[in-house]
């Protein structure tokens, strides 16, 4: 039972005492907090706060779940060998734990993906934000949403059975085998086009209309206004969208597990097969690796590296976005 009700009886229901009536307008959330609820309500509040706090717990959980096996891994393999070695053969008889082949594999697929996603995503964003009539927008936005909603295993199938044999070998006469970082990277690029397009479009739509009008008033046409006024004004949001897309490409698993191959090697040409960090995790996770074994710990060491890399990219993207808010 609440103390308010006990001391003031039923009058507290209609006129809450000790509350500044104007405070709701200044700070609704604060106003709601200062009113004491009934016992059941406090329990409900604790449940709400707990649910929100759970997300922090998940992050801490991820960190420790990855860190503990990784530390055990580092007890057997020096961190120098792990980060600078260029031979990755954790399951071979003469095991070697240099992660560089996986890192270069990831870099190849990500860079190829960005080479597709940046021009096509930005083009789509510019068209949607600056040129498209409302009717065309209403058709194109769902197309991008569908493209974003297609499961990555379907993209993997597309890379393996269509892009590599039909597009690359037959149409473009590029000699690639069944597995190549090129085919995986191209399809990865298609997958992240919607990320670049929708976030960049948001950034350009946020540019104040007055800037465009000023540019038109000075006699600039639409292309010049887009390239010289809107694009520079939105550049931090656009950069952030590219960094976020890159982080998605680094973390994507199924496409590279299917289409890039399972040979961990330092890739020197895009037509070669290669293995990425996520590809290694996918391949090893499906096999039998008993907890506590070196193979199992290796899995988590690579997972930690992946997590740290993507986290850094997200933090960078976040700080770039925060800069845009200071401009207007």
């Amino acid at each position, binding site marked *: 039972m609440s103390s308010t009700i006990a001391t003031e009886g039923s009058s507290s229901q209609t006129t809450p005492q000790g509350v500044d009536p104007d405070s*709701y307008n200044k700070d609704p*959330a*604060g106003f*709601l*907090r200062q009113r004491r*609820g009934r016992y059941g*309500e406090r329990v*409900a*509040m604790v449940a*709400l706060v707990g*649910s*929100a*706090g*759970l*997300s*922090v717990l*998940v*992050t801490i*959980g*991820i960190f420790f*779940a*990855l860190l*503990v096996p990784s530390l055990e891994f580092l007890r057997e393999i020096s961190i120098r060998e792990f980060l600078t070695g260029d031979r990755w053969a954790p399951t071979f008889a003469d095991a070697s734990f240099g992660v560089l082949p996986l890192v270069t594999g990831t870099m190849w697929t990500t860079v190829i993906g960005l080479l597709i996603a940046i021009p*096509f995503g*930005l*083009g789509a964003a510019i*068209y*949607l934000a600056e*040129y498209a009539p*409302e009717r065309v927008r209403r058709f194109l936005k769902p197309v991008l949403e*569908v*493209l974003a909603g*297609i*499961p*990555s*295993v*379907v993209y993997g*199938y*597309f890379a393996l059975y*269509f892009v590599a044999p039909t597009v690359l070998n037959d149409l473009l006469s590029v000699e690639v085998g069944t597995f190549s970082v090129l085919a995986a990277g191209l399809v990865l690029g298609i997958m992240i086009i919607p990320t670049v*397009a929708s976030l960049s479009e948001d950034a350009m739509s946020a540019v104040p209309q007055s800037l465009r009008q000023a540019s*038109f*008033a000075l006699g*600039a046409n*639409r292309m*010049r206004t887009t390239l010289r006024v809107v694009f520079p004004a939105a550049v931090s949001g656009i950069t952030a969208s590219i960094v976020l897309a890159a982080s998605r490409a680094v*973390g994507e*698993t*199924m496409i590279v597990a*299917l289409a890039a191959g399972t040979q961990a090697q330092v890739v020197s040409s895009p037509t070669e097969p290669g293995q990425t960090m*996520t590809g290694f995790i*996918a391949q090893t*996770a*499906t096999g039998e690796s008993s907890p506590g074994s070196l193979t199992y710990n290796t899995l988590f060491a690579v*997972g930690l590296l992946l*997590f740290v890399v*993507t*986290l850094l990219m*997200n933090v960078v993207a*976040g700080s770039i976005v925060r800069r845009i808010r200071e401009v207007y």
Partner: protein
Amino acid sequence: MASLGAIATAPLKAKREGDKSAKSIVFMGVLWFTIFFSVLCLGTLLVNAFFDGWTRLDGNLITRYSSTVLPETAGARAAILGSALVIVMTAVLAIPLGVAAGVYLEEFADPRRWYNKIIEVNLTNLAAVPAIVYGMLTAGVALSIGLPRRVVLAGAIALALLILPVIIITTREAMRAVPREIREGSLALGATPLQTVWRQTLPSAVPGIATGSIIALSRALGEAAPLLLLGGLVFVSYDPNGLFSGYTVLPIQIYDWVKEPQLAFQQVASAAIILMLGLLLLMNAVAIVIRNRYQKRW
């Protein structure tokens, strides 16, 4: 929105002349090509899957178990049932938690407090954690507390954690769209803040939350990566029958078939892809119907 668009294009039309220079037309052409490329990719992907797989869109696909020796008659029965079970469990876990967290952050949290700031930053970062990492988290925790990790429940927990940030963000947007007057009216009639949320704000936000949740669940349905570590990829030739049953799901069954070199496996894989895309389309259609039919316009 429409009036903003009218303001945006009005001065542009006056400048038509300048938009017809050779450079401008080439620029327009490039923009059209980039957008055409996305449409083309989507079309090719769908048509390609359909042509590879339509011969295997038969009863066997739904009623039979997978086979390592007879791909011609292999089916995805165990995977379909497994996907259904995992997705229902994911919804049961993720929706109440996500909605509760969203309600707290939108209605009660003081954004100036340090702990609320931490939750906010944390949410944006969680939303971008690679899916496979959630599988590693669940596998690591299950192993360290001695629970089995290759079961339906573990898969559902990983997927629930994966879509939790999406549901929280959706809930917040839906709550934000409810006008302040509704809350003020309720409070003025003597309802407590929680009664206001429970009887007024939340019911008004349900269509938005439902739409976002269904779309999040459709993402979970297509997600394979975290389940690779949680027993999704084992040969299952029985119906999953509980939370601690072994299982497989559609995207992983597809992954398994795609890896096989024989043409017949490729065909059954693309038939399963068509089936999965159909299910996703259905879920998204339901979400759109809910949005259009039940969402209140204030």
